[in-house]
């Protein structure tokens, strides 16, 4: 079974994003970028399935500008076998990403597509579900555990009240939640090896996909800041403040 795993180049999770002063977008100039953390978990899961003999080739896919090659090299240094960059400098929204991935799925014929459940930049949490809908496949979203059996996969999902278990027919789309695994650190020799792995580049037009945005960004702004608080000396002062000033207990 071939696995396709989608990776996004996103703001590093330690960086606090700020709007540009004119409100036209988010200021990403000179900001550290990394692989979206949930996508690292997705790559790790694909590798573990391969190591367990449940998966064959792992193809990493990214959509975006040329700099996404770095993200794909990271995925290959972790263990993906090759990469495909759908290169574009235009904004690509989740529905368009799902359509591009669908086109690649039709070409590559994987048995499973794994994605992060959400990207920490736009916080959409959409692409995996959209891809599954477009393909008419089952979807194991917010996965905490993935067990591949014969023609089916059992997925434990992180849901509001706890854990839900589904069995899904293959081929299938899985989206990774935090507890699925802990991604490995990339070792230097593997970074060198990854440079020699094949990386193909295609354009959205090559795949016949219209990526025109369906949502227009009107403006961005910072949320209202919380007014500064006070330090209390001890628990008695805290209880007094909560009772008499804040009146919340």
């Amino acid at each position, binding site marked *: 079974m071939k696995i396709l795993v989608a990776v996004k180049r996103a703001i590093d999770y330690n960086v606090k994003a700020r709007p540009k002063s004119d409100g036209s977008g988010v200021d990403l100039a000179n900001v550290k970028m990394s692989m979206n953390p949930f996508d690292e978990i997705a790559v790790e899961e694909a590798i573990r399935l391969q190591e367990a003999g449940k998966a064959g080739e792992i193809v990493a896919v990214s959509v975006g500008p040329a700099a996404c090659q770095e993200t794909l090299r990271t995925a290959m240094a972790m263990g993906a076998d090759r990469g495909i960059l759908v290169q574009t400098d235009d904004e690509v929204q989740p529905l368009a990403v799902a359509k591009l991935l669908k086109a690649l799925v039709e070409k590559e014929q994987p048995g499973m597509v794994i994605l992060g459940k959400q990207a920490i930049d736009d*916080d959409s*949490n959409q692409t995996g579900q959209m891809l599954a809908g477009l393909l008419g496949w089952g979807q194991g979203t917010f996965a905490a555990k993935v067990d591949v059996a014969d023609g089916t996969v059992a997925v434990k999902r992180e849901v509001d*009240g706890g854990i839900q*278990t589904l069995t899904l027919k293959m081929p299938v789309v899985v989206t990774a939640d935090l507890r699925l695994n802990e991604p490995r650190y990339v070792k230097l020799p593997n970074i060198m090896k990854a440079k020699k792995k094949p990386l193909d580049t295609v354009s959205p037009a090559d795949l016949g996909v219209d990526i025109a*945005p369906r949502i227009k960004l*009107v403006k961005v702004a910072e*949320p209202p800041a919380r007014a500064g*608080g006070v330090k209390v000396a001890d628990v008695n002062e805290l*209880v007094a403040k909560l009772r008499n000033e804040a009146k919340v207990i």
Partner: protein
Amino acid sequence: MTSLVIAEHNNQSLNVATLNAVAAATKIPGDVHVLVAGHGCGAVAAAAAQIPGVAKVLAADAPHYAHALAENLAPLVAGLAGGYSHLLVAATTSGKNVMPRIAALLDVAQLSDIIEVLGEDTFVRPIYAGNVLATVQSLDKVKAITVRTTAFDPVAATGGSAAVENVAAGPDAGLSQFVGEELTKSSRPELAAANIIVSGGRGVGSAENFKIIEALADKLGAAVGASRAAVDAGYVPNDYQVGQTGKVVAPQLYVAVGISGAIQHLAGMKDSKVIVAINKDEEAPIFQVADYGLVGDLFKEVPALVEALDK
């Protein structure tokens, strides 16, 4: 223009998050309809019909709708969407699972986690862990929306009297099967609906030590939450997690204990009315959002706080 809100329920009762989603829908011009799809869910449809401001309830009943599996629910909603300008669902794990699939079937974009309705096609939604608020305009004919429940006060549960109309169930897609669920059992309030939340972080140190947090929660009648660090360390189950990718909460009082205040955690709780932080590190970022900060050892301060509350 008419909006369709997809109800969340367990076939017996309506999840209150549905009332927040209806609240968002009522801010959009036009009528509001509610879809109750489930199995043996007549009581839920009857409850939805009592929500004030709801003009009609659509009920679809079939065994394969019992667990709101996206593979079965999405085609049903997409089939009904022709009559609607807006489709809304609460941004719970269930809503987040199904709405993008519906949007894809309709070839429309989705607006995730809206916190404000500015017009029929324009909404505000948080991005980058809530550090940026984006005003976005949908260019699609049908607007597929998930609603951040904490941003819309729930409408009343009773007082209305909408008609219930049965709609034909679609086929079982046969792609997915519900096997079971392990739900966290607790006598405490639910995180999403609690007025007071006491959360513990890495500083709590162990699952055993979480009893200190629970004792404070019980004293306050509060729900128990946690930071990602505490969940990853196995102190508490995953559904306790508050944050960018866990639950977003906005209680009257949020008490953060032994939580440093990473961006990702703040994203899930900074809209709380009053925030209290207890941490031994006075430089911890959590103090920047706290209304009341107490610098000290949580193992000493939290039990002392429980005692002080008795006075």
